[in-house]
């Protein structure tokens, strides 16, 4: 299996090298001021989570179009270079290396998978290239303990999501919540966050159960939680495994409230999870149907114009990927302009010095500080659920 993939890898590598050769040969004689500034994306563009990569690409592209239409960064256009990590940490790290060392990107954006982002973090810090997460929520991606931290994020953070999920559950009457978590670093990051958040309310979890991506039946785990007396479930998993949990609950006839991280938003949850899908209340950072601002309408119109496949709001799910990426690209654009160079340290310092940006998700005031590399906080979350394939806000 590995051998086959590495052969494919080598081939893409060679064709990439060929393309770079052509690109290097072509612009002789043109002024270097006109050379585009490259920014990179390492995200899942194939496999189960491919839709997330598509959403991120769309958000970044709309923002890049806007920046370039307004004259670019001090006269230089921005160019996006994307690499597929196939949700595989090793491939993600390889792609990040290639983007930094070969393509010389000024900044990189990350994708949906926390394990992939965690693999890239040490490399980004070491090579001093800003790495901006727009989806993966693992707490220690930005809080990575590096003395010289080049990792930023415009997305949810598990530590805050844990607090938000616990607050929401308590508000809806939870006394003894249980956890059903995917068995990977993302699930673990949330286990810590949820335990910490429960402790703040002097509560403990009824139980913690893990399950695998390919588990067909989660009834045994859920039965354990039921016998432990869980009255609410915290769910953390991507869309396909999340729907296995919902189907298993339906089968058991256990009508327990489900408060979820944003995994279900990543695909056709209504179709996969069946009639009970609307009962899953999950967190989002942005919904086009929630904020009818002029900016939201403008971005939606641009999306429809650029991508004819987008016809209704159901086609821009999950909106978080688009919105986080859009705001992140504009923040990086502001930093590049301010830095006046593509030097990693200058761009990082410029990101920390941004005062205000009127974005799609909110108006960012001092989004990044030396202590806080996360532009979004617990107050920026909204709860939502799926109704007939569309994500609609829930009134809290």
């Amino acid at each position: 299996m590995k051998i086959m993939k590495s052969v494919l890898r080598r081939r893409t590598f060679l064709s990439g090298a060929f393309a770079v050769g052509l690109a290097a040969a072509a612009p002789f004689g043109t002024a270097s001021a006109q050379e585009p500034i490259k920014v990179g994306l390492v995200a899942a563009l194939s496999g189960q989570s491919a839709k997330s990569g598509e959403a991120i690409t769309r958000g970044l592209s709309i923002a890049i179009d806007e920046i370039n239409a307004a004259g670019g960064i001090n006269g230089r256009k921005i160019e996006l270079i994307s690499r597929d990590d196939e949700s595989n940490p090793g491939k993600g790290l390889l792609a990040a290396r290639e983007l930094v060392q070969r393509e010389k990107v000024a900044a990189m954006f990350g994708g949906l998978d926390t394990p992939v982002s965690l693999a890239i973090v040490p490399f980004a810090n070491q090579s001093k290239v800003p790495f901006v997460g727009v989806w993966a929520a693992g707490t220690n991606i930005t809080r990575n303990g590096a003395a010289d931290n080049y990792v930023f994020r415009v997305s949810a953070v598990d530590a805050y999501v844990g607090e938000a999920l616990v607050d929401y559950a308590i508000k809806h009457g939870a006394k003894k919540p249980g956890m059903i978590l995917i068995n990977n670093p993302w699930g673990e990051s949330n286990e810590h966050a949820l335990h910490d958040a429960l402790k703040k309310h002097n509560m403990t979890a009824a139980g913690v159960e893990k399950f695998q991506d390919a588990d067909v039946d989660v009834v045994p785990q859920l039965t354990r939680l039921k016998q432990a007396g869980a009255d609410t479930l915290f769910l953390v998993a991507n869309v396909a495994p999340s729907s296995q949990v919902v189907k298993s609950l339906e089968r058991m006839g256990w009508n327990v409230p489900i408060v979820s991280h944003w995994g279900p938003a990543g695909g056709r949850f209504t179709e996969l999870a069946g009639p009970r899908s609307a009962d899953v209340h999950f967190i989002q950072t942005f919904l086009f149907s929630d904020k009818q601002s002029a900016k939201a309408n403008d971005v939606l119109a641009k999306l429809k114009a650029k991508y004819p496949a987008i016809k209704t709001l159901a086609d821009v799910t999950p909106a978080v990927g688009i919105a986080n990426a859009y705001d992140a690209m504009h923040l990086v654009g502001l930093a590049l302009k301010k830095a006046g160079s593509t030097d990693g340290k200058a761009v990082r310092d410029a990101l920390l010095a941004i005062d205000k940006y009127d974005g799609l998700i909110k108006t960012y005031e001092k989004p990044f500080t030396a202590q806080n590399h996360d532009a979004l906080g617990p107050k920026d979350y909204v709860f939502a659920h799926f109704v007939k394939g569309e994500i609609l806000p829930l009134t809290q």
Partner: protein
Amino acid sequence: MLFTSAVITGLGLGAMYGLIALGFHITYTVSNTVNFAQGSAMMVGSVLGFTLMVTYGLPFWVAAPIALAGCAVFGLIVERVLVRPFVERNSDAWLMATVAGGIIVDNIVLFTFGKEPRSLPSPLATNSIEFLGTGVYPLQLIIPVVGLCVAVALQIIFRRTHLGKALLAVVQNRDAARLMGINAKVVVASAFAISTALAGLAGLLIAPLFSVYSDMGTLFGLKAFAVAILGGITSASGVMIAGLLYGVVEALVTAYLGSSYTQIVVFTVIILALALRPNGLLGRAAVNKV
């Protein structure tokens, strides 16, 4: 309740592993080769089922035979392109070739079928029924029955029918069988077709309980191979029993020890079982003739 629900879960999953593992058993018995793309064959069954039933709206009784035939054709191609050329040159490279074939098929499906997991609805997996104090879909009860029936049918086919006897004759002595007018090539090819059709059947059965996507078969294929070895790859009933046992142990470990321990405990049990019975539960020792 914990016990019964775990056992029902385990029997359903175990039958899936068993069906795919039977495919390993059949080709190994006939040709001493296995198709490591069995997991992909299962996925092909699910994807064809989804395409015919959901996209084209065909009823199950029309769609299922077409999907199984499609899987059988996949098996024929695997044998002709990925196995036979290597076996004829006394090479073991069919091992890598079938693994690679599976990856290629997974990726072709990724690009044609799409990247998003889809759901194949079934009236047998919509409303749960009460069974021994726990809720189950009727389909979960049907799967183990189908699995056992297939294993028994295979046993009978091998022992009683002309095709079965031809298969066994080829196993015993390829050249003698050929002299008796048995076309060994056709026999081996049909063994591959039957094996992928069985995996496809598993795919059709599991799809309504799971979601349909391009690499859904990978883990099933791996577990099924473990099951085939555990059962003693030369015995159909041994393989099916091993599948059911594997499924039940997996579900019971999850239910009583917690899901963090499932893989560790289950695979430790397999290693121990093989240490005690190196030829599998019902397998016979291979005789190395010198």
